[in-house]
């Protein structure tokens, strides 16, 4: 019974039902893709599976952003960095696992042959190991976030100031990764992957597996963040968001709380990046662009801040709109995105989730 009480504290009964329903829909997608015949009404085509898989990764990022911005009040405009670093760690592993199946039939990744490099740079070597790559995808962003966050929060950089600094941070890394000499593919990034842990990435079973992993990952991340939010620490986070000075005077140390949340969200983003790259088959420095990071913030704002579900919703809606517009009306997409930014802050500060879910509460 104690377990039940704990679970109910984590999510209300309705929430569990909703979560179960959402999970069911998520897992129905691969089943409908593999079981039903192509062409039948219930069939989910391959491209849609890949697209939803991609959105699931974005949703993981959105949950992390929401934990950081919605609950702790830290608007990071540089979370693309952690997402991309996780992606690069996985990309480096995938690059090495190509072996000699590349265009140049060399043991080295193609871009190194192209640049006339004779041997693997030292920092590439351990990425031949899948376990190491996974750990690097999680701990690399975590470590970077810890150092950066430590420097920033210690000197009490907050609010907009912090946002601007993080934007400069992602801008600097973008410049770094665009260089060929940095050694991770420069402008073109890493691509043409073949195999992940022995499974061919071209196989639809591998794709479904990755999709399922992403869905499970989202579920786990969501519950983890939910757990933090409803805990006592979560209350402190909200207190810091609302009145940082007052919570400091009340005896809490905002720096360590902020550092914890910032680092955790970076690790989650790295995880999402590592899941994202094998599904889309490419990672390049454009992920470091300030605009990609700021789009992550808009997912959360469109969904609902301080509601993890809102983040997931926002990620799906914004990216769904983006996928549709960039195909159907590429010229109009930036207008839509721009209006979205303005409208959501001016007219719907609660976001979509509040419009849908809380309508009854308002009346």
């Amino acid at each position, binding site marked *: 019974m104690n377990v039940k009480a704990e679970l109910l504290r984590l999510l209300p009964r309705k929430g569990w039902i909703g979560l179960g329903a959402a999970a069911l829909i998520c897992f129905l997608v691969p089943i409908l893709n593999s079981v039903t015949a192509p062409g039948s009404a219930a069939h989910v085509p391959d491209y849609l599976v890949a697209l939803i898989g991609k959105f699931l990764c974005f949703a993981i990022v959105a949950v992390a952003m929401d934990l950081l*911005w919605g609950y702790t009040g830290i*608007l990071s405009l540089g979370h693309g960095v952690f997402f991309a670093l996780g992606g690069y760690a996985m990309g480096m592993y995938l690059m090495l696992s190509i072996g000699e199946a590349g265009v140049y039939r060399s043991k080295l990744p193609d871009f190194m042959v192209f640049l006339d490099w004779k041997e693997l740079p030292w920092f590439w070597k351990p990425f031949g190991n899948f376990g190491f790559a996974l750990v690097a995808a999680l701990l690399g962003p975590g470590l970077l976030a810890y150092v*950066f966050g430590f*420097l*920033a929060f*210690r*000197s*009490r*950089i907050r*609010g*907009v*100031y912090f*946002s*601007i*600094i993080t*934007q*400069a*941070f992602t*801008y*600097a*890394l973008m*410049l*770094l990764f*665009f*260089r060929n000499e940095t050694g991770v593919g420069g402008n073109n990034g890493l691509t043409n992957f073949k195999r992940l842990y022995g499974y061919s990435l071209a196989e639809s079973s591998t794709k479904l597996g990755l999709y399922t992993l992403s869905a499970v990952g989202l579920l786990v991340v969501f519950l983890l963040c939910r757990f933090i939010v409803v805990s006592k620490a979560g209350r402190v986070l909200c207190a810091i968001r609302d009145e940082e000075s007052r919570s400091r005077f009340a005896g809490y140390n905002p720096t360590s709380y902020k550092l914890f949340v910032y680092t955790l969200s970076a690790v989650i983003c790295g995880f999402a990046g590592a899941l994202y790259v094998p599904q889309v088959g490419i990672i390049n420095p454009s992920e470091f662009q*300030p*605009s990609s990071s*700021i789009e992550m*913030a*808009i997912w959360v*704002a469109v969904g609902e801040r301080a509601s993890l579900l809102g983040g997931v919703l926002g990620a799906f809606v914004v990216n769904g709109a983006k996928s549709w517009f960039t195909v159907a009306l590429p*010229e109009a997409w*930036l*207008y839509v*995105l*721009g*209006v*979205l*930014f*303005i409208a*959501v*802050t*001016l007219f719907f*500060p609660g976001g979509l989730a509040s419009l849908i879910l809380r309508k009854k509460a308002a009346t």
Partner: protein
Amino acid sequence: MHDAAAAATARRVAVATEAQLAPCMNKEATMRARPLRGHGLLLAVPFGRATILLIVACLLWFAAVAPAHAALDPALLTQLGTDDPDVRVATVRKIGASGDARAAVVLQAIANDSLAIANGRAVIVSGGNVVDAATGEALGATPANLETIVVNNRLRGELDSALAGLKLSSPDRETRLGAAKELQASDNEDLLPILQAALAKESDPGVKAILQLAAASLGLKSSDPEQRLQAAKALSASDDPQLRQILSTLLTKQKDGSYPEADEHVRIAAQTSLDEINRRLRTVELGVSLFTGLSLGSVLLLAALGLAITYGLMGIINMAHGEFLMIGAYATYVVQGLFRAYLPGAFSWYVIAALPVAFLVTAAIGMALERGVLRWLYGRPLETLLTTWGISLLLIQASRTVFGAQNVEVENPSWLSGGIQLAGGLVLPYNRIAILGFALAVLAAVWLVINRTRLGLFVRGVTQNRAMASCTGVPTNRVDMLTFGLGSGVAGLGGVALSQIGNVGPDLGQSYIVDSFMVVVLGGVGKLAGTLAGAFGLGLLNKLLEPVAGAVLGKIVILGLIILFIQRRPQGIFALKGRAAEAM
């Protein structure tokens, strides 16, 4: 008559040797001093005897030098008829180096295929006339056994450089310039004395520079180590980067381990000259990189100044600030188009007309933005950030729709093209200089508005204490609007300046937004002096790091340094104190 010409030739050769030693010394003085210096002892002898001795000495001297440099020797000319191409080339070189008045005529005749050998005598055939090549004496009827000289490509090349050598004494500047350029490519070392002599006489700096280059590169190719040594030494006085190139090629080891220059003494002299040139140019280059740093600083200042007003004074995070720069640049483009269409006569002044246009357009858009959107978001900086980002996306896409996704062309007016030439081929462009001055002028104007006008007083009052300012009757809403308009207008002015040095396209603003915020953050929010220090500090640091770390790494290092700097001084170089700091 003949003797006088020979003496003149001999003296010219002597001068040439002297000039080789120090081509940059005063050539006129060298010319006058040389004949005397060589005979210093003789000056003590009574005048009459001295003159005689001098003449005798000159004649002896002439006799010693004469064989190679005689007035055209008929025997020499007949050598042109031999079958051996090497002999023919050598002959052409000798003719070119003779300095004789007939040389040009003969060489031209060879080039025109009108020189022939008849009865062991070189003749020039033009139409029905036949003249003796060496003397110009008419020979009357065409001899029967004419043998035309074969001119192949190699010989033609030699002819060209020999003729160029002769053209160096032309009174026409363009002819000399062309001839000097021609000689740079030559490797006929016989021409060296002529070149040296021409160098001594040359007064035009442009021609002189090229002559020096030609003389030095010829000297370095000479087969005589002594000549090469002199040339290498002489080069230390030059500033031309091409000469550095030539010198360092000499000193670079080839694949087989040998040097292009075999003689060690020459290598040492070349190294010394190279060091000397580098030392001198380094000062100039340091000055130039200082200037480019200041220039980058002025660009940053223009980009960040508007932000210093909207963010620094009002506390509004305007992510669309870069797009105001872009609008200013496009306004310049439009004004340029209007001038081209309606006022082509005054085209070079379109930039001046673009300034008020850009200011008014961006200020109007800024004020509309403030009234329409931003005022609803006061006190919610993060929301302001997202909203203005959305606005920037709208403006970027709108400019794509209106002007197209490609960059548009904005032309520098004539008075902003070109620049000040410095030693070593370095240039300070006028447009950069103008922007430096313009940035400082705009800064001064903004300072005056903020500190010396009624509006400025209101702005400062509202910044410090909005409620109190409102109580004393300051129309805070209108002040907000005007302040934001001022900041946006200044960004528009910055856009005019940016259009003169970079690409004008929809993404122009995006490349400046991070830098502009860094300037304001580094300088200290709310202080114009801080913006000035931040902009020039970043500009100089960037340009000083660039040669060491490369452009991209330099930028990354700087961003890292800013983050570390903020550790020490979170409020920037110039921190606000007291209440105002809390309000930020």
